[in-house]
């Protein structure tokens, strides 16, 4: 045996040399291939590369169903009305101006000379075709958004008149969303029941080139865009990378220029990476508790108020969002034009008042609640912080976690399981929509289908009867005070946009909607 081993060792050197040589050759090959990145990246192209966090559900604004589609749609479509990024106040888009000559009529004056990517004119006829398609076509997912529109009339080649069933000044901001994205009627063959799901043709800054499912969506500069200097790059490539860490690695290695909608905790990490910058700001996305006010102790408004008052929201943000974000005292962030200080005061941390309310409601000895939530790491962390804060007023419970679809279905749907659901509200361009969807008696998001406070519907309607923003703010302030007083939801924290960008990126800003637009971005 030892002899065999000795001979084996004696016999090996030639083989080992060969192995070493082939290994070295392999290493040299790898090293030479490894030299490629510098060549590949120094190509001087003016193409904006973006990491997107989800594959779009559709590139037709009328048929898509996902909130994450907007970031893709904005590249290929303009909206009739635009918004100010910092406040979401409406501003001109494809419609240069708009007015309500009387509460039930909205008149849109369109820009002259705007064309679709296919060269056809974006005129009043095209707008009428789109609005009618959005509100009546069987394939449309946004019929509800335009429910108040009775007829759409072409007044002249650049004027469209919308006759409404009831006053609705929320419409301009609704037209800044999917419902206001104009698709070329020519591309649809003038048939409202067809779609451009996979080949969008709009008036947006980049015309569509290709969509490889789950991989990337490519656009090229639309030279005839109506805004001077838009877009800022010759092309755009949206790379679909659902995994957040993968997206961050892609921007860190310079493969993409922007990775948007990272979690707040990633901000600390991004700050430590020398070649990256951060674009950050508040959004309409609010972490909140949905309350089933038709169940058990939660029928008592004092208990609901106590649950809200006992939350130290600043500590909550510090613990769960690494201090990136802000406390949510109502269903809007502070930067929003309709934010109400008076409503916010109703939910400011006051644990003594919370204890008093619990005592008064007969739960001074404590209360056990049936809590529901989601199983991801961030949600579990928020749940733990909340339970720790509620322990001060004797509220106990254990979160039963399940995926979003399952627990949302059980909580809001027929089964009506659970007292509270820790989830989020992603926001709507017009706040009256947010309040109507969250608190109307028959709304899906009102799990107990409880009637809202008296005067709620009137105040919502008043907010829609005037186009004056200050007057709207007053009416919406009343709505916000009513619902926070009744505490039919418990807002917790405002999520901040956290985008990592390379040093080449210029003129990229966060917006309050939390859905980035890249129209103005330039590469330096």
């Amino acid at each position, binding site marked *: *045996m030892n002899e*065999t*081993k000795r*001979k*084996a*060792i*004696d*016999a*090996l050197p*030639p083989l*080992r040399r060969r*192995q070493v040589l082939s290994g070295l050759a*392999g290493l040299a090959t*790898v*090293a030479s*291939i*490894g030299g*490629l*990145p*510098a060549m*590949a990246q120094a190509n001087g192209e003016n193409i904006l590369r973006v990491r997107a966090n989800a*594959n*779009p*559900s*559709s590139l037709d604004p009328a048929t*898509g*169903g*996902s909130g994450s589609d907007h970031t893709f749609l904005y590249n290929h479509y303009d909206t009739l009305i635009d918004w100010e990024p910092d406040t979401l106040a409406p501003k001109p888009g494809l419609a240069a101006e708009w007015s309500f000559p009387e509460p039930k009529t909205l008149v849109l004056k369109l820009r002259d000379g705007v064309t679709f990517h296919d060269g056809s004119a974006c005129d009043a006829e095209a707008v009428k075709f789109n609005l009618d398609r959005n509100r009546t076509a*069987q394939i449309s*997912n*946004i*019929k*509800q*958004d335009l429910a108040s529109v009775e007829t759409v009339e072409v007044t002249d080649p650049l004027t469209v008149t919308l006759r409404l069933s009831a006053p609705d000044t929320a419409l301009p901001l609704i037209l800044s969303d999917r419902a206001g994205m104009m698709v070329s009627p020519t591309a649809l063959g003038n048939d409202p029941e067809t779609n451009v*799901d*996979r080949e969008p043709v709009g008036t947006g800054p980049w015309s569509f080139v290709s969509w*490889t*499912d*789950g991989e990337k969506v490519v656009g090229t500069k639309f030279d005839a865009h109506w805004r001077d200097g838009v877009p800022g790059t010759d092309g755009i490539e949206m*790379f*679909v*990378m*659902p*995994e957040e*860490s*993968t997206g961050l*690695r*892609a921007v*860190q*290695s310079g*493969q993409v220029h922007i990775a948007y909608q990272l979690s707040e905790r990633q901000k600390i990490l991004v700050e430590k990476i020398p070649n990256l910058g951060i674009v950050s700001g508040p959004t309409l996305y609010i972490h909140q508790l949905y309350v089933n006010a038709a169940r058990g102790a939660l029928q008592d408004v004092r208990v609901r108020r106590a649950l809200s008052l006992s939350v130290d929201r600043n500590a909550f943000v510090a613990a769960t969002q690494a201090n990136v974000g802000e406390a949510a005292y109502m269903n809007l962030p502070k930067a929003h034009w309709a934010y109400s200080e008076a409503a916010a005061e109703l939910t400011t941390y006051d644990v003594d008042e919370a204890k008093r309310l619990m005592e008064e409601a007969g739960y001074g000895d404590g209360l056990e609640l049936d809590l529901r939530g989601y199983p991801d790491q961030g949600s579990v962390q928020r749940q733990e912080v909340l339970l720790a804060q509620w322990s001060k007023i004797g509220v106990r419970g254990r979160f039963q976690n*399940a*995926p*979003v*679809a*399952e627990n949302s*279905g059980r909580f809001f749907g027929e089964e009506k399981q659970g007292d509270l659901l820790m989830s989020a509200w*992603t926001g709507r361009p017009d706040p009256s*929509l947010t309040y109507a*969807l969250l608190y109307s008696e028959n709304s899906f998001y009102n799990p107990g289908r409880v009637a809202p406070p008296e005067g709620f519907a009137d105040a919502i309607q008043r907010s829609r009867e005037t186009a004056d923003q200050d007057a709207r703010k007053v009416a919406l302030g009343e709505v916000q005070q009513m619902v926070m007083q009744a505490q039919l939801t418990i807002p917790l924290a405002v999520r901040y946009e956290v985008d990592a960008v390379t040093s080449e990126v210029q003129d990229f800003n966060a917006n309050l909607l939390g859905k980035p637009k890249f129209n103005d971005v330039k590469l330096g």
Partner: protein
Amino acid sequence: MLTRRLLQAIPVLLLATFSVFMLLKLLPGDVAITLAGENATVERIEEIRRLKGLDQPLIVQYGQWVMGAIQGDLSESLLSGEPVSTTLARVFPNTLFIVLYAVTLSVAVGVPLGILAASRAGGLGDKLVMVLTSVGVALPNFWIAMIFVVIFALNRAWFPATGFVSPFEDPLAALWYATLPAVALAASGMAEVGRQLRSSLVETLHSQHFRTLHAKGLPFRSILWKHGLRNVSVNLLTVISLLISRTLAATVVVEVVFAIPGMGNTIVNATLQRDFPVVQGAVLVMVLTVITVNLVTDILYSILDPRIAQQ
């Protein structure tokens, strides 16, 4: 044998696709709600359910899918509307490329390691190889992948951190993009091939047959290459065959880490979105691949060892 094996594959395919179909249906969540959009009414959700045939009994839905699949129609993605066959034709070659690259690396590194260890059984080289291969087997692929990305993509910038280039578009760039994922996938494969080969070779080299060869005066190199490796080739083939199937499954995680548009990524995303036609199609292709690998392995067995064919 070929006909028998192909016939045996039919119930396997039916069982696999039916199990996956039922599991997907058992999962909570409703794709109709996703499709209906953010402000959907109950009526709209019902309308979509009807339009997509989701209101049909489960067995009818599965039956319709099977009938379509037999005729080569794997249906369309519920979410994007893209034909499933188009999706799979695009992503499967990417996964196959990564898998073949990883298996080639596993064999290219694992075989020399196994030979080295076996020919120095009990010695320092053997011990070193055993330690290295133990580490290779123990470390999870995704962890190795992330460490590689940090070292070779982010710190050294030798390789891309994410992405993929098709070998049909640019073979050199394809190799460059696929190197880190393939090495991450191959780490455990190299270790496994090395360990299995070492173990088989040690056993073979210590047999009486080889002692006789040695006594006849044959040099060790000749004993090893001409007789030893041939004797263990069937074992090695089994290991490689299992390795291909396992590497195929492991791509699910590694493709997510490297954002590779392959089968793994497609299955994960489609499952999360309850896009069952895509999951069904992907599972069908995966099962077919495994069956094909097993079939080819069986054929190769009979070539390497004619006694198997006679049996």
